């Protein structure tokens, strides 16, 4: 028995093998937890500033520029301070325990998901090789799906406990939306897991490092996953649970001060998690592009630093995409949202699983093993599928449920009505 810390600190192990002593594992895990939590929380705070800066840039404004110099860098701190100082309101008729529980339950799943996402190449130390992931679970990706499915509780409970019609409507909308899109999200990742052959995220990243990034081989799966991720995080164009023009602020109408802030943090935390998942599943995770020596040992500290940097850069690109789309696209209508999820995305995801599985089976029968040639065939088939889906079928035939199909006669009638109301009656006869 070693006295926890002292003995393993002095011990020198093979830097390229996992640490043998429990104490090292214990300390390394705690250090990783602290680092991930700190970076995550600071990142989320800065994201609120980034959102305002990006929106200002897109709308040709200045954005926050007073607190902390010209860039407004201290704005998140000022916001946080304000939220601590404000009054915690508790409206009449709320279900008190659930009202308090709801913001916590929306925040914790988003945070916990991070413990299984690998964020860098393993770090060799004198106490053994430290993997850059807080907990490398054997069920990796399923753990993320399971926790992701719990995020809906916070929203639903907030809507119900608030004792407010708008909140309740927001909560109901969100539960229907999140349950619908979760199905497509899970289904869209099955081709990725089929290719990797296992559900641990390290296997997925290794497979991509050798066989090409999944976004090149499985573009349609990435497309479905990205759309579903937007719906799961309740971001525009899927922010119906808090549609201001209809529901005031949706499920968090009655929340103030730090409780509201928790919902706000949870939204950004979910965004970070969704971006990290897109990077891990489809963009090679921490894999440094166009190199191969980062995939095999011997690892070094510099390599770890480089891979973590590459990983953060990839995640930031997707965070920017989230904001970019928010300030570009308008909101869906509710029936469009539901028909897009159930009539288009789910059948597409299911048929894509069949296609990918058949392709893998055919390649196996043909005796082609995973490698460059295998990846090339997958990529070529993928290009054909993408052209078929986005250029041929998407002409009012498949994605039409999303905008509500209209009979040609009805369209003509509407056009006639529109032309009659203007001064020139013969303009569009």
């Amino acid at each position, binding site marked *: 028995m070693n006295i926890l810390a002292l003995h393993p600190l002095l011990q020198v192990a093979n830097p390229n093998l996992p640490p043998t002593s429990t104490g090292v594992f214990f300390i390394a895990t705690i250090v990783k937890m602290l680092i991930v939590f700190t970076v995550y929380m600071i990142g989320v705070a800065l994201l609120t500033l980034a959102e305002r800066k990006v929106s200002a840039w897109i709308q040709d404004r200045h954005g926050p520029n007073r607190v902390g110099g010209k860039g407004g860098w201290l704005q998140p701190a000022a916001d946080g301070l304000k939220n601590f100082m404000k009054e915690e309101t508790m409206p009449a008729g709320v*279900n008190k325990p659930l009202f308090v529980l709801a913001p916590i339950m929306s925040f914790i799943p988003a945070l916990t998901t991070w413990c299984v996402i690998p964020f860098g190449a393993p770090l060799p130390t004198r106490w053994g090789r430290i993997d850059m992931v807080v907990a490398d679970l054997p069920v990796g990706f399923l753990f993320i*799906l399971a926790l992701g*499915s719990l995020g809906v*509780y916070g929203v639903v*409970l907030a809507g119900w406990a608030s004792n407010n019609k708008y909140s309740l409507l927001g909560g109901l909308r969100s539960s229907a939306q999140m349950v619908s899109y979760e199905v497509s999200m899970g289904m869209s990742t099955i081709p990725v897991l089929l290719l990797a052959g296992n559900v641990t995220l390290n296997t997925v990243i290794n497979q991509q490092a050798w066989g090409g990034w999944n976004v090149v081989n499985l573009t349609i799966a990435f497309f479905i996953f990205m759309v579903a991720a937007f719906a799961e995080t309740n971001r525009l164009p899927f922010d119906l649970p808090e549609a201001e023009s209809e529901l005031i602020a949706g499920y968090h109408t009655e929340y103030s001060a730090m409780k509201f802030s928790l919902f706000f943090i949870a939204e950004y935390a979910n965004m970070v998690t969704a971006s990290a998942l897109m990077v891990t599943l489809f963009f090679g995770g921490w894999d440094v592009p166009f190199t191969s020596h980062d995939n095999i040992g011997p690892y070094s500290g510099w390599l770890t630093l480089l891979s973590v940097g590459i990983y953060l850069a990839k995640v930031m690109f997707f965070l920017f995409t989230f904001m970019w789309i928010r300030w570009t696209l308008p909101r869906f209508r509710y029936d469009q949202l539901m028909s897009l999820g159930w009539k288009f995305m789910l059948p597409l995801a299911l048929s894509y699983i069949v296609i990918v599985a058949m392709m893998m089976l055919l390649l196996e029968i043909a005796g082609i093993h995973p490698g460059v040639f295998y990846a090339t065939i997958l990529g070529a088939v993928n290009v054909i599928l993408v052209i078929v889906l986005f250029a041929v079928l998407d002409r009012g035939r498949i994605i039409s449920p999303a905008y509500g199909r209209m009979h040609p006669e009805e369209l003509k009638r509407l056009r006639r009505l529109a032309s009659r109301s203007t001064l020139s009656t013969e303009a569009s006869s």
Partner: protein
Amino acid sequence: MDPHYPLIYVFHFYLFGVIAIASALAFVTRKSPVSAALWLVNTMFSLSVLFVMLDAPFIGVMQVLVYAGAIMVVFLFVVMLLNLGHPSDLADVRGGWWKIGAGVFGLVMLAEIWVVSKTRLSGDLVLPPGANESALAKLGAVGAIAQPLFKDYLLAFELTSVLLLIAIAGAVILGRKVGTSAR
């Protein structure tokens, strides 16, 4: 419980066992349907922890994903749509005989647990030590379930899926409005 388990294992086994039983009790005694549903979710979580401790991480995760993440959310959804009113307005319409019957049934179940915990399993039913770990290492968490499910028990699996399909078809037919044609 065998004495050779590490202390930390035994501690967590009893901790989550007690949480599971306490949450289950709270689940059946709460009057508000929403809090009852949440206590049931808590029970699911504790059961999931126990599955993970038994080297069955896949079943543990599925417990959370399917029961807590999907089924209970739909339950909550329905409860909120019905909005049954304040819990104090809700009264149990069942009489005293039901309570006595439930108590007797509970005692029978307790007796069964006691009997089961006292019997010794035959050797065929006991896995050799380390079998779970080696299966996990060889096949991965999903493969360890998938191999028997899609090879040894394929027929039973397919029959179950047909049963579920029948249930879905039945729900669609029952939910259809009378007088309108199926769309």
